[in-house]
């Protein structure tokens, strides 16, 4: 059953790894059509928060509500897309083969049409027929963007997506994020690139030692 939501809200989020307390009682909310930038020094819990939002990690305590829905489910995962520094693809497959695999896993109705649209949108040319192992950083990021947006997710999580990209690739990334925001997606972005954060952020949440220390509209 397909589900939809306009807001993601976390309350009292705690995550403990052994003796390390990655998150200690985080409260925050993320709305549709809004880009929220999460800032903070290394080890402040940003990626842990993103992994919990993406249903990749269970919180030790606290709740995550996706609209009226709570807990983990396949229907919720179908509404989440993640783009990180690592491309989350198979380097021995070509761009098209990777996209076909993820289209099958998402059980899209017309995968060929969707892949064709993404290939055009992200200008995946003839190089897309080669194994992804041979791609430049910029080409890999285009493929990763296409993978993350394959299923038009309601919640788009971006973890340091601009690391290692040249100026043109960062501009392409910005355009993609803007397009997703205009589509009504809930966009959560982690970045150390303050210029990128300044251009994209509508809300900023600052974490330090697993706690929200500042939250404001940009």
């Amino acid at each position: 059953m397909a589900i939809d939501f306009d807001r993601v809200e976390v309350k009292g989020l705690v995550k403990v790894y052994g003796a390390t307390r990655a998150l200690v009682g985080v409260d925050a909310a993320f709305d549709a059509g809004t880009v929220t930038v999460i800032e903070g020094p290394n080890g402040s819990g940003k990626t842990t928060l993103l992994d919990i939002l993406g249903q990749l990690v269970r919180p030790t305590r606290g709740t995550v509500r996706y609209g009226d829905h709570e807990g983990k489910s396949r229907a919720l995962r179908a509404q989440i897309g993640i783009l990180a520094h690592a491309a989350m693809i198979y380097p021995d497959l070509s761009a098209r083969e990777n996209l076909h695999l993820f289209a099958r896993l998402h059980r899209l109705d017309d995968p060929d049409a969707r892949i064709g649209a993404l290939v055009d949108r992200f200008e995946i040319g003839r190089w897309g027929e080669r194994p992804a192992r041979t791609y430049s950083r910029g080409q890999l990021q285009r493929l990763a963007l296409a993978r993350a947006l394959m299923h038009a997710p309601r919640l788009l999580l971006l973890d340091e997506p601009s690391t290692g990209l040249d100026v043109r690739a960062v501009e392409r990334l910005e355009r993609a994020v803007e397009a997703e925001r205009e589509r009504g997606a809930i966009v959560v972005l982690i970045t150390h690139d303050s210029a990128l954060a300044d251009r994209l952020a509508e809300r900023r949440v600052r974490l330090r030692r697993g706690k929200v220390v500042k939250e404001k509209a940009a």
Partner: protein
Amino acid sequence: MRPFLAGTWAILAKEMRIELRTKEILVTAGLFGLLVTVLTSLAFFLDDDTARRIAPGVLWVSASFAGVLAMGRAWAREREADAIRGLLLAPIPRSCIYAGKTLGTLAFVLIIDAVLAPVVGILFRLNLATDLAPMALILVLGTVGYVAMGTLFAAMSVRTSARDLMLSVVLFPLASPGLVAGVVATREVLGGAPLSETVEWLRILGAFDLIAIVCGLVLFEPLMSD
């Protein structure tokens, strides 16, 4: 059931496509298994009687070492470029990631078994043709449980630093019931016993397979969620 089968099939097809392209697992694990077989045959061959008694151990040691290498390599693919996160995020039952990976690795290890068994037969002067069916049955049953259990621990090792060490240290003790049953059943068959006399060992292998598969399907999601 359909999402499970569709997800399993997609992941199995991906495994096959990558292996057909790279041949990485079959070549590395297969050559390693052959090397172990040849070296042990040179070290232990004394006479035909001794050879018949040693051959089952050589076959299973080679196959299990090659298997652990194959399982490690199969999951290294998921680690590279962090592809496993893409799979975990997909709206499929997470147990079908386990099922697809297990079936793929099982196919690779069975192919390696099919190469190793005749090589052991040649090096130890065994006439495997007469025992082909029972030998194949024992090898398949033994490999299914071994791979089913190994795939679960190899998946866990994706997120640990000493992954290859952990896989070997954890897997071999836990897989020992299946390995022991496989070695003894092979020894009985090569010693001339009819299949009916090895049926108890086959039952142990079957039970081990069932336990390994059920544990893998049930435990994969909670183990991969953190």
